[in-house]
C-alpha cells in the first residue's frame, strides 16, 4: 500500500529531515509513527501527501511512484489519501456538514448521494446530531472528529493522521484512536503520527520510531520503554 525506499529529505541549508528511511505499510495495516518533534514525522507525512518531494529515494503508494505524479495531478492523489490534521483545519465559517462534504463537492457529488455519505461519516464519529453546528461551537475532541469524518467521507484506502490527539485529554485520545481502529477493521490502511507514547504502547500496533531523521525502531513498542 505505502512504501518508502531509501528516502532522504534535506532542506536548503543542509538540514537533513529524513535520512534513508525505508518501510512498508501493507494494505489494511495500522501503524504508529512516533518520535520527538523535529524527528521527521511531519516531513514523512508531507512526502506522502505530496506537499514536499524527497531529495533521494522513492515513495510509492499502491506501487505507483509518487515522483512520476505531475503537479497538475497532485489533487487527484490527495483524494485517495484521507488526512487528519493536528489543528483540525476546519473551515470555521462553514457548518459541520459543509466541512465534511467538502471532499465530496470537490469530486462532483451532489444531492442525496452527498447527504447520505456525509451523514454516514458523521455517524461513524458519533456527531450526527451536530450536522448544522458551526465548528467553533464544538469542543476540541468534537472538532477533531469532524476532521476525521472529513478525511474518511470519500472512503480513501489510506488514512494519515498527524498528531490527532495533540490537544486532547487521555480519554478523548482513546476515543479518537478507537475511531481509527474501527476504520482499520474495515480494510483502511492507517498511519498515525503521534508522540503520545503511552497511548501507542497500550494500543499494541506496529510502531515506527524516528530519531533525527533515521528510522530507529520498527515493531511493537513496549509500555514504559522509551527507545529515544
Amino acid at each position, binding site marked *: 500500500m505505502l512504501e518508502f525506499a531509501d528516502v532522504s529529505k534535506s532542506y536548503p541549508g543542509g538540514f537533513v529531515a529524513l535520512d534513508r528511511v525505508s518501510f512498508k505499510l501493507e494494505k489494511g495495516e495500522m501503524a504508529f509513527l512516533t518520535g520527538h518533534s523535529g524527528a521527521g514525522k*511531519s516531513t514523512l*507525512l*508531507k512526502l506522502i*501527501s505530496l*506537499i514536499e518531494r524527497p531529495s533521494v529515494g522513492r515513495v510509492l*503508494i*499502491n506501487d*505507483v511512484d509518487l515522483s512520476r*505524479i505531475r503537479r*497538475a*495531478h497532485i*489533487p*487527484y*492523489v*490527495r*483524494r*485517495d489519501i484521507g*488526512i487528519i*490534521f*493536528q489543528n483540525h*483545519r*476546519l*473551515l470555521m465559517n462553514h457548518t459541520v456538514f459543509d466541512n465534511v462534504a*467538502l*471532499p*465530496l463537492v*470537490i*469530486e*462532483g*457529488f*451532489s444531492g442525496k*448521494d*452527498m447527504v447520505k455519505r456525509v451523514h454516514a461519516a458523521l455517524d461513524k464519529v458519533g456527531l450526527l446530531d451536530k450536522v448544522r453546528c458551526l465548528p467553533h461551537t464544538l469542543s476540541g475532541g468534537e472538532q477533531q472528529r469532524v476532521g476525521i469524518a*472529513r*478525511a474518511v467521507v*470519500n472512503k480513501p*484506502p489510506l488514512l*494519515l493522521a*498527524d498528531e490527532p490527539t495533540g490537544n486532547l485529554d487521555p480519554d478523548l485520545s482513546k476515543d479518537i484512536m478507537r475511531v481509527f481502529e474501527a476504520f482499520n477493521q474495515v480494510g483502511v490502511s492507517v498511519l498515525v503520527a503521534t508522540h503520545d507514547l503511552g497511548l501507542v504502547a497500550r494500543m499494541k500496533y506496529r510502531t515506527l520510531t524516528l530519531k533525527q531523521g533515521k528510522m530507529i525502531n520498527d515493531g511493537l513498542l513496549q509500555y514504559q520503554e522509551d527507545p529515544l
Partner: protein
Amino acid sequence: MSILFSGRVTSGASEHKIGIARRFVMFWVNHVRQAVASLGELWRTPSASILTIGVLGVSLTLPATLHLLVKNVQQVSDSFTQAAEISLFIKEGSSDTQIRSLQQILQADPAIARVSHISKQQALDEFAAVSGFGAALNYLTDNPLPDVLLVLPKNTQAASARELLARLSKERIVEFGKLDIDWLTRLDAIVSLLRQAVLVIAVLLLGAVLLIIGNTIRLSIMNKKDEIEVMKLVGATDAFIQRPFLYSGIWYGVFGGLLAFLIVEAMLWWLQSAIVSVTSLYDSDFSLQALSFVEFASLMALAMALGLGGSYLSVRRHITAIEPTGP
C-alpha cells in the same frame, strides 16, 4: 478519477452512470449554483464590495460618457451638410438662357442633389437687406454682383465635394466655384481627434478597472488563504478553487457596468433640459442621443469581460502560489 487506485470509484457522476444530457444539465446547474454562491460571498462583505463596485462604475462611466459625447458631436456634424454647398459664380455677360440651361444640366447630374439659382437682383436685394448698406447701394449705377448657382452635392463628404467643385469649375460660363470645405475638414478633424482621445482615455480607464478587480480578488484570495490550503489538502484542483473567484470578478463587472449605465442615464436626464434650451436658441433639430440597447449590451459585456479578465490575472498568480505547508 483515481491515479493511484485503478477501479476506485471517486466521482459522484460516474458512480451512477449518468447520461450525457443529464451530466450536461448538471454541469450548468453546478455553475449557476457556484455563481449564486459567489454572489452571496459579495453580499457577506458589503462594504468592500460596494467600494469596488463604485470604483468600477465611475471608471466605466467616463468612457461611456465620452463615447456619447462623440456620438452626439458626430450627429451635429452630420446635420451640417449645408456646409458642403458649392457656390458657382457665373461669368459677367452670360445670358439668362445660358444660365437656365446650365441649371437644367446640373439638375440632371447624378452627383448633384439640388441646384438653385440666385440672380444678380436677388443677391443685391438680400445684400441690401442683410448688410444695412441699403441706402448706399442705391447710388450704384449698375449691379456689381454676379449670378450664382448654389449646388448641393449628393455626397457631402469633403473629398467628393472637392472633386465635384473641380469638375463644375470647368463649365464654360462659370467664372469660378467656391466650396466652404475647410470648415468641414476642420470639423472632421476635430471629431476624429475627439474619437482618438476617447479611445486613449477609455483604454487607460479600462486598464485601471482590470487592475482594481485584480487587486480586489487578490485581497479576497489572501483572506481565504487558510481555506484554500485546506481545499488543496483535500484534493481540490486549482480550477475548482479558482471558479468562485472568477465568478466574483464577473459579478463585480455586472454591478459596475449597471452602475455606470445608471450614472450615464442620470447625467443625460440632468443635462437634457439644459441642452434643449441651448439647441432651441440655435433653431436646431438636435436631440440628445442616449445609449442604445446594443451600446448598453456592449458596456455590460465589456464590464463582465474586464471583471473576468482582472480576476483571472489575479487568480492565476496567487492561487498556484498558495501551497499547503504541512499536514
